Each structure stands twice: as structure tokens, then as C-alpha cells.
């Protein structure tokens, strides 16, 4: 109980005190929308998980995420959790349950500012690490036990990059591109029929986990902004039975800066 109280007190202290001595100057005026962001997205999703079947399954896959980002003197740190789930991903009259979870953290360093069509643009680039979990359970059994399911798990190191194009004091166009470079991958394998290892080191050639987003952000107040964006998420794992999924999403983000 003592530790829990200390932990909660520390959290409260962290969120209510913007100037922590070890964090550099948080009052530095930057364009990066640091703070807490809540995001909801609705998207069109498609997957081909050849561990089960080569057929394409598609449908609507809502996603939810929460991001905490903090402006330090020379970089921005972010921690993002993303979750999406649907039981309605279909191939004709067959459905599958899809569950995806992502935990991503990264450091974004500011690159020199430049001008594009007479407006300033800001680029950020840095390393990121990510945990990505995919679970697919197909509803094709008639009764009793069934094991028509597969999963993939990636622990990845990669790149995170952002571009912010400032149209006015309260209006920007935000773009983001995140992708993995090297991953430790886990995938369900058929232990009865195959000696293949369920764990492998994966490079860009065999595995891609890419998120791209682009959309306008409007500042309602100095520290409160909303964003509507297009988000594209691609996952490709070819080292085992191929897994390929992609989604086109429209996401809405509410960011509170501190």
C-alpha cells in the first residue's frame, strides 16, 4: 500500500509539474504537440494469414490509442499504446476475430526547420522500440475443440519520424511515419508437422510493420488540439507462413498539452 501511494503521488507530481529539473526546459516553445493524446479510429482492414488460409479477410476494425509525449530540451519522448479488435473480419460467410496491440516508445529529435510554399515545416526523426501483438482466431469450427488460430509477436527497433507543416498559428498538417528495422519475432508454428523455430530474428527484408498518418490539426486553445487524419498500417511477416495485413483508417485525436 505504501508503494502504491508513493507511485500514485509520483504520477500526480509528474503530471502537475511541468518543470522537472532532469527534463530540460519544457517551456521551450515548439510546434510539437506534446502532452496526452486520446485517439479513436475506424478503419477498413484486410488480412491474409497463410498459417490458416491464403484467403483474404476484410472488414471494419476500430482502434483506440493513448499517447503520452514529453518535450525535453533536445528531443521529444513518446509512449503510445494502441489496441484494435473486431469479430467481424470476413471472408464471404466466414468470420475471424482479430486482435492487435501495440506498445511503442520513441525519441524524436528536431531536424533543421525549412520552408515549403512559404510556410514553415518541422521535421523530427529518431529511434523507437515497439512491441506488436497480432492474434487471429477463425470461426470455422462446427463444434467442440478447435485450434484454428494464429498469432505473431514482434519486439522491434525502428525509426519514428514526424513532419509538421504550419499553415497558421492554430492550424497545422501533421504527418508521421514509423517503421521497424530489426525485430525479434514469434509466430505460431505447426509443432506436429514442422521443426521450424517459432522465434526468429527478422530484418526489413522479411518483416515490415509500418504506420503512416497524415492529417490536419487544429488548436482550439494553446494547449488543446484536435486532429483528423488518414492512417495506414501495414504488417508483413514472411519468415514463416506469410502474414500480410493492411488497414486504411480515419482517426480522430484529442491532444492536451502540458
Amino acid at each position: 500500500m505504501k508503494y502504491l501511494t508513493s507511485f500514485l503521488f509520483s504520477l500526480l507530481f509528474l503530471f502537475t509539474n511541468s518543470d522537472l529539473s532532469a527534463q530540460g526546459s519544457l517551456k521551450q516553445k515548439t510546434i510539437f504537440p506534446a502532452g496526452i493524446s486520446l485517439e479513436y479510429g475506424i478503419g477498413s482492414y484486410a488480412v491474409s494469414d497463410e498459417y490458416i488460409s491464403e484467403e483474404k479477410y476484410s472488414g471494419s476494425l476500430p482502434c483506440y490509442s493513448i499517447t503520452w509525449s514529453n518535450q525535453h530540451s533536445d528531443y521529444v519522448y513518446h509512449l503510445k499504446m494502441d489496441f484494435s479488435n473486431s469479430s467481424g473480419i470476413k471472408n464471404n460467410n466466414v468470420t475471424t476475430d482479430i486482435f492487435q496491440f501495440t506498445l511503442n516508445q520513441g525519441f524524436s529529435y528536431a531536424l533543421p526547420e525549412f520552408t515549403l510554399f512559404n510556410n514553415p515545416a518541422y521535421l523530427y526523426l529518431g529511434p523507437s522500440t515497439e512491441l506488436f501483438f497480432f492474434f487471429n482466431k477463425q470461426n470455422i469450427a462446427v463444434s467442440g475443440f478447435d485450434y484454428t488460430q494464429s498469432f505473431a509477436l514482434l519486439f522491434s527497433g525502428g525509426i519514428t519520424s514526424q513532419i509538421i507543416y504550419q499553415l497558421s498559428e492554430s492550424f497545422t498538417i501533421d504527418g508521421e511515419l514509423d517503421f521497424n528495422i530489426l525485430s525479434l519475432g514469434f509466430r505460431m508454428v505447426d509443432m506436429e508437422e514442422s521443426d521450424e523455430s517459432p522465434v526468429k530474428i527478422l530484418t526489413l527484408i522479411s518483416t515490415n510493420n509500418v504506420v503512416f498518418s497524415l492529417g490536419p490539426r487544429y488548436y482550439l486553445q494553446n494547449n488543446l488540439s484536435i486532429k483528423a487524419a488518414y492512417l495506414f498500417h501495414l504488417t508483413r511477416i514472411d519468415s514463416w507462413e506469410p502474414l500480410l495485413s493492411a488497414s486504411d483508417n480515419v482517426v480522430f485525436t484529442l491532444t492536451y498539452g502540458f
Partner: protein
Amino acid sequence: MKEIYLIFSIVCLSLFLSCKDLVVTEPELNLNVEDFEAAWDRINDVYPYLDFKNINWDSIHTAYRERIDNAKGDEFFIVFGDFLAELKDGHVYYRTKGGGEVYPYYPQRHFKDRHAYSPFIVRKYFDKELRITESKSVEYGILPENIGYLFISDFHEDYLINEFPGVMNYFKNTKGLIIDIRQKRGGGYDNVEAVVSRFIAEPLEKPPYYRDGHLLELLPFQPAASLAYTNPVVVIINGSTFSAGELCTEVLKQLPNVTAIGDTTGGGSVGSGNEGLYFLPSGKSIEIGYDDLRRYDGLPWEWLGVPPDIRVVQTEVDIIAGKDKQLEYAINMLK
């Protein structure tokens, strides 16, 4: 100019919203029809019970070929599952390309009895924790009044070959023994032999075993080197006892000191183990057994099951009430 921006925006939006379809595409072809035909042929060639079950396999082809032709994409799995379920065989399953077993059919007696047994209720009859073998295939202990109890969960691998002698050594001074084979699914003949050999003092003829319609000449069960357990034994079975569990029951029932109680077993006597796994052109596979195992009366226990010597009905209601009537009956028999 505004119209140009509007059209440009709509085009961009359309492109954006269809990116996933450019990346994830439909397969160029599927082998659903080829898979169906190969499965039909395989069953026609090796499955031993088409006549016994009075299945007109040609008419099954006619009925399902049309459904297969009309199935789109993975709808194949639904039709294919129905097709295999026509065999009404609890051993038959299919595997998706990489997935595990999908059983299209379960014996009705299994559904009746699957909740009519609980290991947690069984534990209430013991003063102390049950022992368990390293493979977790046997759980065992001694009940009050020096009655031995063992639950066999698995006849697979070589678990019982390795571990059953040690288990039986633990029971050598008991006045009676309960063998619980409820909630059991299959395994190998060798493991059944490992169990039976501990209860016979002299060789015991094996029940009939047919392959490709021919009766195999099998050597009789041989007693194990150590002393046989000749005190009274009660075997508890129910509708979830299946396959190797049924074979074990049928053989043990032949011994004068053994009584089977409970309810008729599930009824699955087609054999072949992993060798029955047959790969279809697309990489999917089906498990179709080709061995025909029989009871001592010459009939297969497929569908028919192995009946108990004494019927003791137990339902889920008994389990909810915290009672294992079948176990209590067995204890009272051995007191």
C-alpha cells in the same frame, strides 16, 4: 478552382481508403475442389465403416460437390466440415493449412457426459493431495479403507509404458483398485498394453483388429514381469471415454477380478494414429483412420461403445451438488 480542389481531394481520399486492397489481395486460385475430391477418394479407399454405418458415399459426393463448387473462399471450411461430419466419427478431423485439429463431429454420449465428471469433486474424497506422474498422464492416490484410485488422462506417447509400473507399485498393498477412465480421448495401443499387462497373470488374447478388411494376427497381451494385480478392480467409464480408453476398458472387462461401472463409452474404434493424417493438394490435411478395431464379441465399438457391467448414471446435476455417484459406487463395491 474550388471544383478542382474538391475533385483532387476525393481522388486522394479514394486512393487512401483503398490502399489496403492494393497490399492484401485475393489469392490467384484456390484448390478447394481438388481438396474435396482428394478427401472423398481417400475416405472411399481406406475408411472401414462406410458399410457398417450404411453410408452411400457416392451420394455424399453428389450432394457435396455442388456445395463445394458454390462455396466461395473459406466458406469451403464450412462445407468441408459438414462433409466430414457425414462420417459421424469422433476420430475424424481436418487441419487448416497450419492450424490445429478441427473436429466436425463429436459422439452424442460425449456431449451427454462431458460435464458429468469433475476432477475437483473427485479430490473431495481424498484426505490428502493426489500424486501425479511426471507426464501428468496419471493422477493417483489411496482412498480411506486402503482402496487405490488412479485416473488415466492420456494414452499418448509412451507415458504409460514408462510410468505405469511405478504407479502400480504404489498400489501393491491395497485391497482394491479404482481405475477412472472418464473424460479421455485416445492414444496408442502400446500404452493400453502397458496398463493391461499389470493385471494379467497369464497371456490374454487380443480383441479382433482388421486392416484393409483383413484380420491381423496379433500376439496376445503378455503379463508384466512383476506380480499381477489380482485384487478387485473397478473401472469407471462414461460417454466421454473414447478410443484407446474404450479398448483398455474392453480388455480389462475380460478379467474375472474387474468390473466396469458407469455408462456406455463414446464409441470410436477406427485407428491409425498420426499415420492417418492425409495431406490434400492445398496443404490442408485430414485425419482418416483405416484400422478397424473390434470388441471381443466381434462388433466394432464405433458408435456402439463399450457398455459397463453395471450401469451407474451420473449427470451434471450430481457434480453441481458435489457428488460423484459413480466413484461412491466403486468405493462401496471395494469396501
